[in-house]
């Protein structure tokens, strides 16, 4: 028999636990801020464009417009982050946005008037319409167990079809001026778009709800293992319905924002919206298999394609080449993010290049 001379330094396990957890606060924070990795990628992209187009790209006027144009998508991305964390998907947001805008426009036209009274009715109708579709999605998914892809694809067709029926296929362009002047193109402090402030409020509230409240915790639990969550008494069906309703409601809010911004219901538009938003969420590190994700990651993920497009246009890259470049940078960005995450969780220092040529394991 041989007993190793070097017995571990630690005492009984409970001491070891305490020790580990004391060190942990910092580590836990680092782990929770894995979106930092993708933020670094974004910063790198911004830096490259700033060097290549120093006179135009990095100026506030340009940055402001990038932010303004991302605002509506950001509101949608908050909802979709919740949905994907539950391991679901929602393809209907573009159509729900259009439907909500149409419903609001019709309501406002019916009431008439150009003041805040009318506008508020529009806002309420739009959000209510979105909530309705979201609730419908959630109900069919949670209670009737139809896969989210099918349900929301069905809703996508139904909501858009109904929007077309309501308008007869002709866009409504009567939007109260107070809406366009405030939400649409208003600013606070003279230069910060109100539409972006609204988005920021949604992002902050969304992040608090997801990361700090019981509802958020249950969202992760459902996506992590639906069966387990159900077994320990999480009201999975209710949570799912709430998550889809929330997403629908945010699509409704986005609907009125879009109406204010574009002064038209744009029923033929929004065809790329769901793919763009889902892409942003996945770039931001949310897993399509559920249980993982952050709001802030999704927002960073939204800006990567937005900044790329803006930068390429400013540099005058041809549209055909832009598609190629955006596609390629997307893959590279997410790849770099993956490698950096793996390093962070390991504490190792394997470089991207080493990883590329090393064989995969563990």
């Amino acid at each position, binding site marked *: 028999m041989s007993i190793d001379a070097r017995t571990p330094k630690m005492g009984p396990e409970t001491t070891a636990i305490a020790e580990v957890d004391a060190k942990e606060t910092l580590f836990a924070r680092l782990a929770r801020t894995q979106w930092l990795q993708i933020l670094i990628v974004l910063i790198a992209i911004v830096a490259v464009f700033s060097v290549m187009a120093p006179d135009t790209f990095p100026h506030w006027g340009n940055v402001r417009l990038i932010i303004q144009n991302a605002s509506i998508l950001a509101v949608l991305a908050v909802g979709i982050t919740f949905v994907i964390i539950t391991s679901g998907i929602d393809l209907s947001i573009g159509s729900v946005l259009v439907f909500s805008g149409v419903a609001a426009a019709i309501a406002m036209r019916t009431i008439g008037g150009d003041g805040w009274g009318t506008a508020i009715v529009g806002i309420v109708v739009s959000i209510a319409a979105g909530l309705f579709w979201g609730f419908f999605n959630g109900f069919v998914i949670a209670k009737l167990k139809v896969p989210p892809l099918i349900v929301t694809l069905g809703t996508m067709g139904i909501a858009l079809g109904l929007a077309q029926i309501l308008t007869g296929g002709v866009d409504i362009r009567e939007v109260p001026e107070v809406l366009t002047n405030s939400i649409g193109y208003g600013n606070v402090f003279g230069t910060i778009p109100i539409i972006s402030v609204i988005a920021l409020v949604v992002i902050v509230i969304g992040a608090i709800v997801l990361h*700090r409240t019981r509802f958020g915790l249950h969202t992760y639990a459902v996506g992590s293992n639906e069966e387990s969550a159900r077994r320990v008494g999480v009201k999975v069906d209710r949570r799912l319905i709430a998550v889809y309703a929330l997403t629908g409601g945010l699509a409704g809010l986005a609907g009125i924002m879009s109406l204010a911004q574009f002064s038209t219901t744009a029923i033929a538009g929004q065809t790329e919206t769901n793919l763009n938003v889902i892409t942003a969420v996945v770039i931001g590190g949310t897993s399509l298999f559920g249980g993982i994700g952050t709001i802030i990651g999704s927002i960073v993920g939204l800006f990567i394609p937005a900044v790329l497009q803006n930068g390429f246009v400013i540099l005058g890259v041809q549209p055909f080449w832009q598609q190629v470049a955006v596609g390629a940078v997307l893959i590279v960005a997410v790849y770099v993010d993956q490698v950096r995450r793996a390093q962070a969780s390991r504490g190792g220092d394997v470089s991207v290049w080493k990883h590329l040529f090393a064989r995969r394991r563990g």
Partner: protein
Amino acid sequence: MTTPILKARGLNRQFGHVRALDDADFEVYPGEVTALIGDNGAGKSTLVKALSGNLAVDSGTIEFEGRPIDLSTPAAASELGMETVHQDLALAPHLNPVQNMYLGREVMRSGLAGALGFMNDGEMRRQSRRAFDDLGATVRSMTSQVGSMSGGQRQAIAIARAVHWAKKLVFLDEPTAALGVRQTKNVLDLIRRVSDTGIAVVFISHSMPHVIDVADRVQVLRLGHRVATLDAEKTSMEELVGLMTGANVGDAAA
């Protein structure tokens, strides 16, 4: 004999062509430790799932404290004061031990913050650590994902959780399978302590020494049917093994 706290009669459940429960009866008495034993695939876990609201049976009745009940959801079982440690532990792999411990029963902050859905994380962490220490569990980090933990660590979390919440009855489906020696001893002690407080325990295990050690009553399941109910003090390992495998008593020994 007192009335059983839980009584099942004629439970049947078919999976495709496999008859997992075949006219199974079962009962649990308050304050007792009832061991449920049987060969692999005998239907023990299926029975536990059926009795804890996790599985609909094809036919059969379940009574709780003398009243027939409809156990359609796990939440319904929890409300009656029943908790379960499943063999495939019901943990959310992406959440940490504390979050798993309190999942579905979070301690909320007081006042408005609580009403808004904010949780009292500090309180939950403290309570969880106490519960794990009670078990001598070697959970080395309270903020890592449960999915990355060792088999024994995960099992300890599941047990701590169930015991913490049980009011009247706790099902433990092979709770010690992955546990270390010391942790196993702690769990067996815990089972005794729990049942001393009047809570009924259903204990599933393949370890006959543990069964005989801790149980008051042993029920034997074979091919989905309960074939015997025995007094733990008056039986032997040989008899139990014989009943489980369908061999003659004394024929097979561990």
